[in-house]
């Protein structure tokens, strides 16, 4: 495990930054588009780095870093059309960025001020899901709804992309999602970032064969793409979403990548993996790779890179100051939105809570 047969993997850009050809997937972008992807990668990494720093300084309770997975997320995020819907795990900050979610909104959950504060409909980007695999069924159901709405097979086609990790493939819910998606030919793409670990557990605790092969047994295609290659990820995901919108049903994409950092800021990966493995993956860094390409093929000049850097600095500063300025949730919001149509019981509990809290304000020492 961990090593793959060459040829299995869709790659369009080598780790050295050279374009390669693939018989099934082609992508030709303008310089602008290449540069935009580069900018995305840098921004996404910077947001992540800033959040990690904020956690270290006690401003976030925890943070799930995407370091190393930027290309997979930006490739997938940019493959989506406006009308497509994404169902993320807790790590898809990069996809959220592509969907126009203010990075500050993504911090709320980790800071502990809310449980997800953006409007999923505004961005077509659902709230984070922490229970492993559960979102794959939601995505499938949503996609079934798209089909029922007649939004497949025509010009107004819509598709769904469900994100999941390599560990998640072991959950019953994920396999049930494959079944529902297949049986109902739902327009959904299962985008699995195989970052080689589920917390401490290496991939061989979840499977004995490459993950992308799982899909065939459920009756739909599985593709393994180099998840550190933003071009290949973009091309493969675009094709899968196009197929879904066209009414071809689901595709499973295994984006082969690596979690460069800890599982979350609470984790200590030195307990379960060796430094040399991390070093080896550094050579496949998704940003360095695209940068080499941009430079070699003169898609970008030093000014461009400097500009991106300073843009990233600004974004980081925005994230930092915005995080520190996030208002604390008002105590009584504890009781808000338990039910859409309210409940006398919750109202009563809120009232007694308010009275109780007021009893302190009254200066009463209990």
């Amino acid at each position, binding site marked *: 495990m961990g090593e793959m047969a060459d040829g299995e993997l869709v790659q369009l850009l080598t780790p050295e930054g050279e374009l390669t050809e693939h018989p099934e997937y082609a992508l030709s972008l303008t310089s602008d588009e290449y540069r935009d992807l580069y900018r995305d990668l840098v921004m996404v990494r910077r947001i992540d780095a800033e959040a990690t720093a904020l956690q270290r300084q006690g401003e976030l309770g925890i943070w799930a870093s995407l370091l190393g997975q930027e290309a997979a997320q930006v490739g997938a995020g940019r493959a989506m059309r406006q009308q497509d819907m994404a169902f993320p795990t807790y790590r898809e900050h990069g996809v959220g960025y592509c969907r126009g979610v203010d990075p500050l909104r993504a911090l709320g959950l980790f800071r502990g001020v809310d449980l997800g504060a953006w409007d999923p409909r505004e961005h077509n980007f*659902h709230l984070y899901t922490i229970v492993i695999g559960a979102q794959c069924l939601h995505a499938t159901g949503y996609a079934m709804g798209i089909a029922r709405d007649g939004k497949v097979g025509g010009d107004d086609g819509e598709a769904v992309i469900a994100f999941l990790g390599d560990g998640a493939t072991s959950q019953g*819910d994920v396999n*049930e999602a494959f079944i529902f998606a297949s049986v109902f030919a739902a327009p959904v793409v299962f985008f699995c970032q195989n970052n080689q670990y589920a917390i401490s557990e290496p991939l061989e605790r979840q499977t004995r064969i490459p993950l992308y092969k799982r899909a065939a047994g459920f009756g739909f295609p599985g593709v393994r793409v180099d998840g550190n290659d933003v071009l290949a990820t973009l091309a493969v995901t675009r094709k899968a979403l196009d197929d879904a919108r066209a009414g071809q049903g689901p595709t499973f994409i295994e984006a082969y990548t690596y979690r460069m950092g800890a599982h979350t800021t609470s984790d200590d990966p030195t307990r379960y993996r060796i430094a040399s493995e991390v070093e080896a993956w550094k050579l496949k860094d998704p940003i360095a790779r695209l940068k080499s390409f941009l430079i070699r093929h003169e898609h970008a000049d030093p000014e461009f890179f400097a500009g991106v850097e300073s843009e990233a600095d600004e974004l980081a500063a925005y994230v930092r100051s915005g995080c520190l300025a996030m208002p604390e949730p008002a105590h009584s919001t504890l009781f808000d939105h338990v039910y859409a149509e309210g409940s006398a*019981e919750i109202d009563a509990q809120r009232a007694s809570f308010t009275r109780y809290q007021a009893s302190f304000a009254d200066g009463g020492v209990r």
Partner: protein
Amino acid sequence: MPTMTLAKALNAGLRKAMEEDPKVLMMGEDVGKLGGVFRVTDGLQKDFGEDRVIDTPLAESGILGTAIGLAMRGYRPICEIQFDGFVYPAYDQIVSQLAKMHYRSQGKIRLPVVVRIPFGGGIGAVEHHSESPEAYFAHTAGLKVVACSNPADGYTMIQQAIRSDDPIIFFEPKRRYWEKAEVAEAPDDDWYPLHRSRTVAAGTDCTVVAYGPMVKTALEAAAAAHGERSLEVIDLRTLSPLDLDPVYESVSRTHRLVVVHEAPGNLGLGSEIAARVTERCFYDLEAPVLRVAGYDTPYPPARLEEEYLPDLDRVLDAVDRSFAF
């Protein structure tokens, strides 16, 4: 409308809801061609098509999880769980996803999903077909839980549940499916609210609270006691949130309360009702609230279920014990 069985009344209610709102979907195992193992969805697929009455793969978590996704897309799915004992594979989707979504999204996502569960025993079935899992859901914040007890309520409550923007676990007393009663077609605003308990027999000596299949049992007990003791019977109807105002009021007059359910006594609905009523009516009660419930054993083989399940005699025995206090 005529006299009809509970199963037919539910069927009529589902049909009406599907006619009124094209976003209402029915999904579950065998709900289509077969019309459900209890025929509650009989004829619906024929009339509304396979896109609206969906025979799903055999996977309860899948049913609930995709229903959540469909609800996010604007649909109003009604999930049928074939029998009470088969809801547990869907537990995570219900408790961690369905129940919490409105809260965590600060009201931005509404999940108007109804989960229909035929529940309770008394039909001589094999294991896992006679469970009463309502407390597992009533303890879960974010869910609303109701139980109907008769055809008239079945007809209206299912429609109200479908119209509600909250997720609702809808319990149907399977052993009452074939019992008939008058069902009135009433204009909406005359309907008794979904989340209200209802006094179904007036009395003065002792209050008896029941829901689902045990309402009939409680009424039979009241009839049997008639002349000797006057029992007031309250049909709980809403299991979460509870509506205990009618109970408090009743207990303030009768000074005694017996709660009846099939589910095991330990941490059953009866415990919560006992705790609350005691807190509210502490000086009214002349005896502790007594509970008549299933024993704290797994559901027994069918030939022992008569011993396991509360019946008229056990209700009257509890009333006696209340008076003996």
